[in-house]
């Protein structure tokens, strides 16, 4: 059992750190203010092979494994989690198309996504309780040679900038299990992106509704088999949840390190506050949570790489961080006291960012259901 990254994984992780220092550190504070999509940085991600990290070499990817992927996401998130979100959502789209797409779909989209020429998005959520149910549910009505899509997808990351959407719609409004995945060009007639939402953090990764007003797509737009959208979504979201956990840990680690440095130089009561036990407890618990979560998510990533079932472990990691993720920032902000509340320091941005990576975004049952079901 080896808990260390391999030499290659370490080099990849180092590349991510170096990239973050070079390209993300200079823009991260500004991005939080201007909230402008950082296209130049996304192009650099492509140049350094990050956008195709997880995809096969034949399609222009780097052919690296999932452990490397989460190490990169964590490394980038230490500096700018918004960019990591953009990369992750891009990867969800490119992975889905590579995995389930027809030769035509793969040829049309995958390389362009890898090169950063096209931005991709993954449109699964809706305003109703679960995709396919609710007044605005996206329904794909069969027509001659294709489908007509009508409804709204909610909280789509990369919306508006994306040129291609992987979209999920029910072909039968009475049957949520008829969920089907489609690959849709952003420019099709009837597709409209709603107003960009103001997010608490992760600013720079756009979030908006995508409205489908009788958008016509051909049969060839179906991704995978009709009615197999549930499987596609489940797998991609399970992978994404591990990646999001890496974001959480990256943000948390950055906060722990910043707070530790602050505490060593902030003098109160005649000594650095880092010497005070309550501060030590706050730092220690936050550091411990990051360390253990990292182990959990890397171990889960290894299962993915080994082709083994991993959904339970992914749910565990997600559930753990849903409980503790924000606590890491609540406590590290606490270490910095009044300064930890001032937006002149990075901690407030990290506080706002981390909350966006631990959202449960799930129907009533939560990961606990999946975990318990697998134990019993």
């Amino acid at each position, binding site marked *: 059992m080896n808990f260390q990254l391999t030499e290659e994984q370490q080099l990849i992780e180092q590349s991510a750190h170096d990239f973050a220092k070079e390209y993300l550190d200079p823009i991260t504070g500004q991005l939080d203010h201007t909230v402008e999509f950082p296209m130049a940085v996304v192009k650099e991600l492509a140049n350094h092979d990050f956008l195709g990290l997880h995809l096969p070499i034949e399609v222009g990817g780097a052919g690296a494994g999932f452990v490397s992927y989460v190490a990169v996401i964590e490394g980038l998130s230490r500096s700018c989690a918004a960019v990591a979100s953009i990369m992750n959502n891009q990867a969800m789209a490119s992975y889905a198309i590579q995995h389930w797409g027809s030769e035509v779909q793969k040829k049309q989209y995958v390389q362009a996504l890898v090169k950063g020429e096209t931005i991709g998005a993954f449109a699964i959520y809706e305003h109703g309780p679960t995709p396919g149910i609710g007044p605005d549910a996206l329904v794909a009505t069969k027509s001659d040679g294709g489908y007509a899509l009508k409804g709204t997808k909610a909280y789509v990351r990369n919306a508006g900038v994306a040129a291609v959407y992987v979209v999920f719609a029910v072909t039968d409004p009475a049957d949520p299990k008829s969920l089907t995945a489609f690959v849709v060009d952003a420019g099709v007639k009837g597709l409209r992106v709603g107003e960009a939402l103001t997010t608490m953090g992760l600013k720079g990764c756009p979030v908006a509704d995508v409205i489908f007003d009788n958008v016509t797509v051909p049969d060839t737009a179906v991704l995978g088999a009709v009615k197999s959208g549930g499987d596609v979504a489940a797998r991609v979201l399970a992978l994404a949840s591990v990646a999001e956990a890496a974001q959480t840990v990256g943000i948390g680690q950055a906060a722990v390190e910043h707070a530790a440095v602050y505490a060593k130089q902030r003098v109160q009561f005649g000594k650095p*506050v880092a010497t005070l036990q309550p501060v030590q407890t706050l730092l220690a618990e936050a550091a411990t949570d990051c360390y253990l979560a990292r182990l959990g998510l890397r171990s889960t990533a290894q299962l993915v790489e080994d082709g083994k079932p991993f959904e339970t472990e992914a749910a565990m990691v997600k559930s753990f961080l849903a409980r503790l993720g924000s606590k890491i920032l609540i406590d590290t902000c606490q270490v910095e006291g009044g300064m930890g509340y001032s937006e002149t320091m990075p901690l407030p941005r990290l506080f706002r960012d981390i909350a966006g990576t631990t*959202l449960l975004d799930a129907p*009533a049952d939560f990961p606990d259901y999946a975990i318990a079901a697998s134990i019993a």
Partner: protein
Amino acid sequence: MSILTTEQQEIKQAAREFVAKHIIPNAAEYDRKGDFHSFLLEAAKESKIFTMAIPKKYGGLGYDALTQVVVAEEWGYGCGGMGTTLAAGVLGMDSVLLVGNDEQKQRYFEAIVNGGLSAFALTEPGAGSDAAAVRTTAVRSGDDYVLNGTKCFITNGGYASVYVILAKTDPSKGVKGISAFIVEKGRAGFTVGATDHKLGIRSSNTVELLLKDVHIPASNLLGKEGDGMKIAMMTLDLGRQLIAALAVGIAQRALDECVKYLQQRFPGKMQPGQTLQFKLADMQIQVQAARETLHHTARVRDSGAPFSKESAMAKAVCGDVAMAVTSQAVSLMGSYGYTSAIAKAMRDAKIMQVYEGTNQIQRLVIARAVLSPAPAAGAGQKKAA
């Protein structure tokens, strides 16, 4: 629920209406812009809400502690930022209430009854949790004191007309060398410095105060020279209750918004599953337990018994509950939570664990009380950290 008298219920209802009219419709916009809500001062003046701690004989509303926290909870429910302005406006004059002589009370309270805002200035760049490390000086010079120094993170500092400022009158004496002074806006050399842009309570005004050779009459000294820290601690014991009340309001609001959202998202027969229901139940338990702790604290104060430990407990538990409940709410409300007003509640809640004494300082106060024997009867207020 704490059993309130009819009068208290009416006051609570009036506060609720004030908040619904003035605070709730404007909270999001002022938070987004980070602008100070000057309009609120007019509305507050009209309703006399600032004067709720000022005794009736000085023209104030003279509410007891329990009534005050019931009102302040409504403010917090509306908006942590606007609530902070109002609460700080009340506690800014607590020092005068506690130790001011009659002339000082008349003068100071009149300013507030006329709609002026107050501010309490203890914190400095080098004196945060280590409040005794105050370096602002106050040197006696004839019939005046001359003040020099810098204060930071002062709520209402840019808009107050009267301030209570802690300064060192005797550098050789450590904590016992600190004194408390009333300083009026407009004194030569007294200026407002940089404004801090914050994670939350963004519409609350948080500034540096700069004192350069500020002359104030000796009659502005509160109590005696050297009483400063004692006065500050007594003031904080009162202020902590109001802040705790804001925190309860923020937490209750988060819970209510979360319930509303989930009911709408899972309409009719699609009830949220029991996991979700139990999380809501836990949030309810936390909010109620925090509120009851606070109400007990207020009752202890109203009874005349010492209440430092109780204030610390209330502030610690209410602040922590606000943080826990708001972050749980954001998590449960998913992407909607992340892009809506509930995110503001989470940002606002964070400061409840920090200002008015960090929750670590509160625990120091509580631990000391837990570990030391009970005081003899009639010993008066205990010294806080």
